[in-house]
């Protein structure tokens, strides 16, 4: 038995677990006492049931829209396709308030649809509050993201498979069965888990569009306990409940859909043989039209900020832009490093050590980071930092850290599959050449990894760029990000300026998504 250094991925996993556990313990024991177990009253029970149902429905609909759209986009080429892809990668990173206003601009009482109907003589009106509004917002935010991720996966199918399918004269159904389905099966648990978590935690959207306190999520209770009751033990306890529910859900997904092995050749973009099928042409036309009608107006409504765009460009805005950029870059670097470390540990467990259960642990860990309520983790970590040093610098550490941790699952989605692919393709060659550690990273992984890593980096950056989570607590005159500025202007009645700032955020996210898309779609 030789004593070896633990894998860096294991160290990262331990560090993350330690950080989260430390935060929880600090939070639960802040008053020196042990936290009393909180009973889940009837209201909390109803909130939990509602959260689970709305998150499941949102996930399901997002998957239907996203997968349909991804298949249609994989089969079709048309002018402006690049722009569409960039927009798909953008909706998810919108600040929630921008998304809420977009939904109202289109579906609200004085929205475009209501006005169109009134023009046609229909003045009855309709209400989107409740499930319709929540689902519209969630599917708008997440469906396009599913499409993006799935499309990336579909592009991974090796060229040989396509040639073989062509040679064998596969029908579209056989193509779906043998080429597309394995990709979907591999992507599904991860993506579905992410969407479920995002929707389960959704807060401002559910409150604004839910129409009443029966439509609420656990995050509201956490928020209340943290900011109004100042009851940190309760915060820790509620956060644990949330963590438990989210983790069981992602674990279930990973268990239900195991990842199939990948092909052993290099992919390249091909023309799909099923593109010529008449029925699929009709289907794709319908899918693309429906998606365009659904996503288009909502995305377009964000552009109303153009009117006052020039008026908001001032020193404050530029400073906020630089601050956002700095924090987002730091967060994205952290997210990519952690995702790489975890993914390579998962790869080692799965392929070299043949222990898929441990590998699944590493696969689920990033999702756990998303399940931890950011407010609770921030508060807990702050209490730790407070003991160690100057609390006024805490914001500088916590903002990139928390944003980075929250982006790990997204970066992981890009990095992990590619890393597995490299090992399956070149692992044995590398082992026989004695490549390990740094040289394995630079020689074997890097060439395959640089594009997905850059794509993950761009997405992580965009996510952090639009985030208005913990900045609410730790923003300040020295730490003003764009979303913070947006809320500041809203608080001063400047609705127009707020929508322009929202537009700036979205435009930058589109740019990032475009870069990320170019990197992840290009052939090797």
């Amino acid at each position, binding site marked *: 038995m030789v004593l070896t250094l633990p894998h860096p991925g294991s160290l990262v996993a331990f560090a993350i677990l330690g950080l989260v556990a430390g935060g929880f313990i600090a939070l639960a024991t802040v008053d020196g006492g042990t936290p009393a177990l909180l009973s889940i009253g009837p*209201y909390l029970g*109803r909130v939990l049931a509602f959260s689970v149902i709305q998150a499941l429905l949102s996930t399901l609909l997002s998957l239907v829209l996203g997968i349909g759209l991804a298949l249609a986009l994989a089969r079709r080429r048309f002018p402006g396709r690049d722009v569409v892809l960039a927009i798909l990668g953008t909706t998810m990173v919108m600040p929630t*308030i921008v998304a809420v206003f977009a939904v*109202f*601009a289109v579906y*609200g*009482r*004085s929205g475009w649809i209501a006005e169109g109907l009134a023009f046609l003589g229909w003045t009855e009106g309709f209400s989107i*509050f409740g499930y319709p509004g929540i689902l519209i917002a969630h599917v708008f935010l997440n469906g396009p993201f599913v499409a993006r991720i799935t499309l990336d996966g579909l592009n991974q199918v090796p060229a040989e498979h396509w040639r073989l399918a062509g040679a064998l004269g596969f029908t579209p159904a056989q193509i779906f069965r043998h080429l597309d389905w394995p990709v979907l099966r591999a992507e599904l648990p991860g993506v579905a888990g992410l969407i479920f978590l995002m929707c389960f935690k959704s*807060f*401002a959207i559910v*409150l*604004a569009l*839910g*129409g*009443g*306190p*029966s439509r*609420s999520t656990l995050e*509201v*209770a956490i928020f209340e306990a*943290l*900011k*109004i*009751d*100042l009851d940190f033990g309760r915060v820790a306890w509620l956060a644990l409940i949330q963590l438990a529910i989210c983790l069981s859900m992602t674990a279930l997904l990973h268990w239900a859909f195991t990842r199939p092995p990948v092909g052993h050749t290099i992919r390249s973009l091909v023309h799909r043989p099923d593109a010529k099928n008449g029925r699929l042409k009709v289907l794709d036309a319908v899918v693309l039209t429906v998606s365009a009608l659904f996503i288009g107006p909502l995305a377009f409504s964000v552009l109303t900020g153009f009117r006052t765009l020039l008026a908001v460009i001032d020193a404050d805005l530029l400073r906020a832009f630089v601050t956002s950029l*700095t924090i987002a*870059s*730091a967060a994205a*670097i952290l997210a990519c490093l952690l995702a790489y470390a975890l993914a390579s540990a998962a790869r080692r467990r799965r392929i070299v050590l043949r222990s898929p259960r441990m590998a699944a642990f590493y696969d689920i860990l990033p999702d756990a980071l998303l399940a931890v309520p950011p407010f609770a983790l921030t*508060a807990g970590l*702050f*209490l730790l930092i*407070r003991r160690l040093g100057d*609390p*006024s*610098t805490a914001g500088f550490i916590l903002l*990139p850290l928390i944003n980075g941790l929250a982006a790990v699952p997204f970066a992981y989605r890009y990095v992990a599959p590619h890393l597995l692919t490299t090992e399956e393709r070149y692992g044995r060659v590398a082992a026989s050449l004695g490549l390990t550690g740094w040289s394995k990273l*630079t020689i074997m992984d*890097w060439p395959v990894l*640089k594009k997905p890593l850059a794509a993950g980096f761009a997405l992580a950056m965009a996510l952090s760029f639009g985030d208005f989570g913990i*900045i*609410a*607590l*730790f*923003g*300040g*005159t*020295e730490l003003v990000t764009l979303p*913070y500025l947006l*809320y*500041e*202007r*809203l*608080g*001063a*009645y*400047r*609705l127009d300026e*707020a929508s322009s700032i929202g537009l700036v955020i979205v435009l930058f996210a589109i740019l990032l998504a475009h870069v990320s898309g170019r990197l992840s779609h290009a052939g090797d």
Partner: protein
Amino acid sequence: MFRRLLLTLATLGLTTLGLATGLAQAQTKPTLTVYTYGSFAGKYGPGKTVKERFEATCGCELAWVTAEDAGSLLGRLRLEGANTKADVVVGLDMNLMAEAKSLDLFSPHGVDGKDLALPITWTDSTFIPFDWGYYAFVYDANKLAHPPRSLKELVDDPNGPKVILQDPRTSAPGLGFLLWMQKVYGDQAGEAWGKLKPRIVTFTKGWSEAYGLFMKGEADMVMSYTTSPAYHVIAEKKDNYKAAAFSEGHYLHVELAGMTRTTKQPDLAKTFMTFILSEPFQSAMPEGNWMMPAKTPASGLPEAFKSLAQPDKALLFTPEEVQQNRRAFTDAWLNATAR
């Protein structure tokens, strides 16, 4: 490619470091750190004016540190505890006062609280009010010709206007309206909520979402302040936004400032506390924070503030009553509305 990436990473790292050290540079004058909420210190808030005017006389620097809103301020103070850098906190409110006191972070202000323009007499020795207003429903007179004249009329009329409210668990005006209902209806508040419920469009997370939705035409009225119309008159030259005056009286919103007991410069903090109730600070409140000044400045109020709805009666629970009953009130509200 790999080397280029490393280089980029290094540059980014250095930028971050530079940003941090640049901020940490030592200053020669003493610095008074004042915590407040975001829009107070923002571009359109009174923060810049207050800073200029105070620095003109104090021989010090005033540094604003902000959290999003009053609740976040309190949460942050709770987290920082005795290690807080705050010398003074500006922007708590009466409904958070008892919780704020229980933090044991504030020291008596010693400022003379007489001759205030508040509708109540101020006796608290820990906090001083710096501005105030009444909660009120704001409506567009071009669209709603006959607003209800009392809370009872609003609640009882099944064909009455639709309203947007804020969630009392996450928002100050949301809690304000909950207390208002409680004050008017007492034990019958649950039934009243039930009657009003069909006309409540939604409860939003905060004031900003609610007001934004109202401006986008999602409801006839929105929970805000009697002073909101003054913004539209002065900044937008629009006089169609009004606050509906209710005959039962309106719930009072008082914003508070306090100095910490942990401050390293108690004299400077005390000077600022006195400055808060002086002309230079108070005259910045109406058009900076869109609230009534706690002490009417000698220059008087702007014209638009004089024509605002003037409630006959201020409704108010003591901070202690709020602290004791908030949970019960919120639960009753949940029972009545969350079905």
